[in-house]
């Protein structure tokens, strides 16, 4: 069962024929961070999670997490022996048990972590992260959708899994519940040292949470890689076109209370880029997740002095490529940071853009996503 030659990794390979759909998956995933699984309905997102968990059996294939093999051609580890936490689309709490007993069901079966104690969350931390205490004595059918999903997440965490599988955990919730749970997930992500597979058909949710992105299409892997790498590739599927761009972690360095703005800095300390964004009640030194979409960056040759745009950065052109929508993707370097701009072929021709040129990148909007 254990193969010491294998380094830390998370591999999922299988082929499966299921009610006339063919799944052919080959993934080499990081063993921590949020792995976003994106795809339209029927693309195989849920099937992927079910195969990893063992709820969907496969005849052969390989599922390996770090040194543990859960499935290979000769061996199939039963579901209850896989160290997973599974959060379903519907909270699926046990209706015959109250919240406390739902959690106890998981707690008394929890995995004992063989590594360090600090890579796991204890009960107190989970209760605090998800604000469980006030719900303990309630019954599942007396909880709101958001509360149920918080309990379901807590229950999955309390089993102390080495992989967390989340299947569209927010899809049954309204906007405010979504925001509420998302902020819990942001906190969770920072504290967990395990891979979290997060299935969603919302690119916004994934931009907010994911570090790594897998795009599934008709049962096959269309793209996989670091989220910035996937969202800047030129053959991005059309349904992700609007999300093309980069996501950076930026530090709040200055506040301008007069105009409700804050200055954030991202990239290498010695050579960082700075942006003015609207103030969202942060403190100096806080880190924000910032998304700069390629469609929001336009290119000008001389610095405009009469523009309404706050963020105009001097940059140099690293590459010019045509994408699959016949738009030009311009890769820009600002200090040591990379940004992308999507412009029309006509504009690129008109401005006579070439690799190495110094241009001004006008950033029309910057989204603070977390």
């Amino acid at each position, binding site marked *: 069962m254990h193969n010491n030659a294998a380094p830390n990794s998370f591999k999922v390979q299988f082929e499966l024929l299921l009610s006339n759909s063919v799944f052919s998956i080959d993934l080499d995933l990081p063993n921590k961070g949020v792995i976003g699984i994106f795809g339209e309905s029927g693309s195989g997102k849920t099937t992927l999670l079910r195969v990893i968990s063992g709820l969907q059996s496969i005849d052969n294939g390989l599922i390996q997490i770090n040194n543990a093999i859960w499935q290979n051609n000769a061996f199939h580890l039963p579901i*209850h*022996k896989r160290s997973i936490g599974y959060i*379903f689309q519907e909270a699926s*709490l*046990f209706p015959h048990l109250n919240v406390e007993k739902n959690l106890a*069901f*998981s707690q008394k079966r929890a995995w004992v972590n063989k590594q360090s104690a600090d890579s796991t969350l204890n009960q107190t931390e989970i209760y605090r992260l998800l604000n469980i205490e006030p719900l303990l004595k309630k019954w*599942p*059918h007396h909880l709101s959708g958001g509360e*149920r999903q918080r309990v379901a997440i807590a229950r999955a965490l309390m089993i102390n899994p080495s992989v967390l599988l989340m299947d569209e955990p927010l899809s049954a919730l309204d906007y405010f519940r979504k925001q509420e749970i998302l902020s819990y997930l942001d906190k969770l992500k920072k504290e967990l040292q395990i891979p979290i597979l997060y299935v969603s058909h919302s690119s916004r949710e994934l931009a907010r949470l994911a570090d790594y992105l897998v795009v599934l299409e008709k049962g096959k892997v269309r793209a996989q890689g670091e989220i910035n790498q996937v969202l800047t590739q030129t053959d991005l599927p059309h349904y992700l076109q609007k999300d093309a761009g980069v996501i950076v972690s930026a530090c709040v360095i200055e506040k301008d209370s007069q105009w409700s703005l804050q200055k954030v800095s991202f990239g290498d300390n010695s050579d960082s880029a700075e942006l003015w964004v609207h103030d969202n009640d942060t403190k100096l030194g806080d880190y924000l997740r910032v998304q700069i979409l390629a469609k929001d960056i336009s290119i000008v040759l001389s610095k405009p002095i009469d523009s309404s745009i706050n963020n105009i950065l001097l940059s140099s052109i690293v590459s010019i490529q045509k994408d699959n929508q016949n738009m030009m993707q311009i890769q820009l370097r600002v200090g040591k940071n990379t940004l992308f701009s999507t412009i029309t072929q006509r504009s690129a021709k008109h401005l006579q853009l070439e690799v190495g040129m110094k241009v001004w990148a006008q950033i029309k909007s910057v989204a603070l996503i977390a």
Partner: protein
Amino acid sequence: MLTETDWSTITLTLHLASIVTVLLLIIGIPVAWWLARTTSAFKGIVSALVALPLILPPTVIGFYLLLLLGPNGPVGQFMQWLGLGLLPFTFEGLVVASLFYSLPFVVQPIQNAFESIGSRPLEVAATLRATPWERFFYVALPLAKSGILTAAVLGFAHTVGEFGIVLMIGGNIPEETKVISLQIYDHVEALDYTQAHYLAGIMMLFSFIVLFALYSLPKNRPIRYGA
């Protein structure tokens, strides 16, 4: 009012129904679980066999059981070879016959209850490290509780009310196989309508109370899962 024989038939009937109910739950729960979960081709055949007593006249079942369990039947011969007595015209024979006769009344409500649970709670339990046995005892059984209660009540009441099969297998032996329904029959045969009235009235009342309680229970409330 009630004669001593009347009383002994009442206790005998309750004794029989209790034993049969317990045995039926022990047999019926696994059968119902299998029927609710299986994708086997045998599901149809087993379902049909279990449901047969619902439509067959009790005399038909009694007749075949008599042949099967009698001195020349395969089961009868086997019993004799084991050195045990024959089952027909004994209390034990009555228990065996009642098991067949009341089986569908126990299996079907439990099967419905198991089916209405769906696969999700069991999947959740599996991802929380519950073994297949734990999933059954800690998730499936508690969630099917009301179905099992219904099954027990129906199985008990139905066994109390049987007549034809008791006559065929039991043979109306006082203190051994003479149950209430047979006693009423004897009273009517003897034109002793007053005694028949007492027992028939008790049966009416019992059956009504059981059914009333059953339909008043909040049993058919759909199981409420989370959103």
